[in-house]
């Protein structure tokens, strides 16, 4: 799944500069694309959550964290961050087993 994230983020954002309107659309598109590709993996009985954050780089600090209450043996997540000169993007996919 990490490969999918890497792939999608680089292909969509490699050349882009940060622009509010563009990034707004981009977040929607990217999350849909990632969700579709993860679904294509056809992993049965899993629910999927995809979170994308795209932000402008402006010498600010930022931290992202997450905690989950789930079943460790079956549930997991994957994430990837992409950065270029004007923007950064973080993609996280959570997979939760549907019992």
């Amino acid at each position, binding site marked *: 799944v990490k490969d999918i994230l890497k792939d999608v983020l680089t292909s969509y954002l490699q050349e882009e500069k*940060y622009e*509010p*309107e563009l*990034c*707004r659309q*981009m*977040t*929607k598109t*990217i*999350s*849909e694309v*990632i*969700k579709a590709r*993860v*679904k294509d993996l056809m992993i049965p009985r899993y*629910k*999927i*959550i*995809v*979170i*994308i*954050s*795209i*932000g*402008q*780089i*402006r*010498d*600010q*600090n*930022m*931290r*992202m*964290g*997450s*905690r*989950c*209450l*789930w*079943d460790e043996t079956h*549930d997991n997540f994957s994430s990837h961050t992409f950065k270029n000169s004007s923007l950064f993007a973080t993609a*996280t996919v*959570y997979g*939760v087993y*549907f*019992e």
Partner: protein
Amino acid sequence: MHAVEMLSFSQTYCELNYFHSQTTFVVDEITTVIKEAVESTIGNSSYQHSQINQWMSSIVESSLSQLTKLGKPFKYIVTCIILQKNGAGLHTASSCFWDNSTDGKTYCKTGQAFHISFFFFNAKRTKSKHNREIAFNETDFCFSTGSCKVRWENKTIYCIVSVFGLAI
């Protein structure tokens, strides 16, 4: 504060034995719980780099523990983004493949622009084998000077916390 989606949630622990709890839509309850967790942790602080990790852990953990106390059969995913206010823009989006009738999410931003979104996954067994796909949800928190959705003039931090709730 936005109470976002209609959601039915509950929470599960391995110790919990009941999977037949009624699921009720209590968006406000969740939002309140989360708000309290955030306010008690951050209060009126300004951005301090050294404190960030601690704040984040404590927000997320106290939210989770409050949510578990609600005692409903859900799995929870809580995510938190803390952003120093600097005129930069941030866009967040999420796309979920789950069961619309039982799972949900919400988010909230505090006055210090600590944004917290919560996703609740209903842990209850559902009869439907077919997971319905949720429509795309976008939360756009653009803080750039050009197109701000939210302006917090006298604070220095933005914090975004998301909680997802999933049914088992």
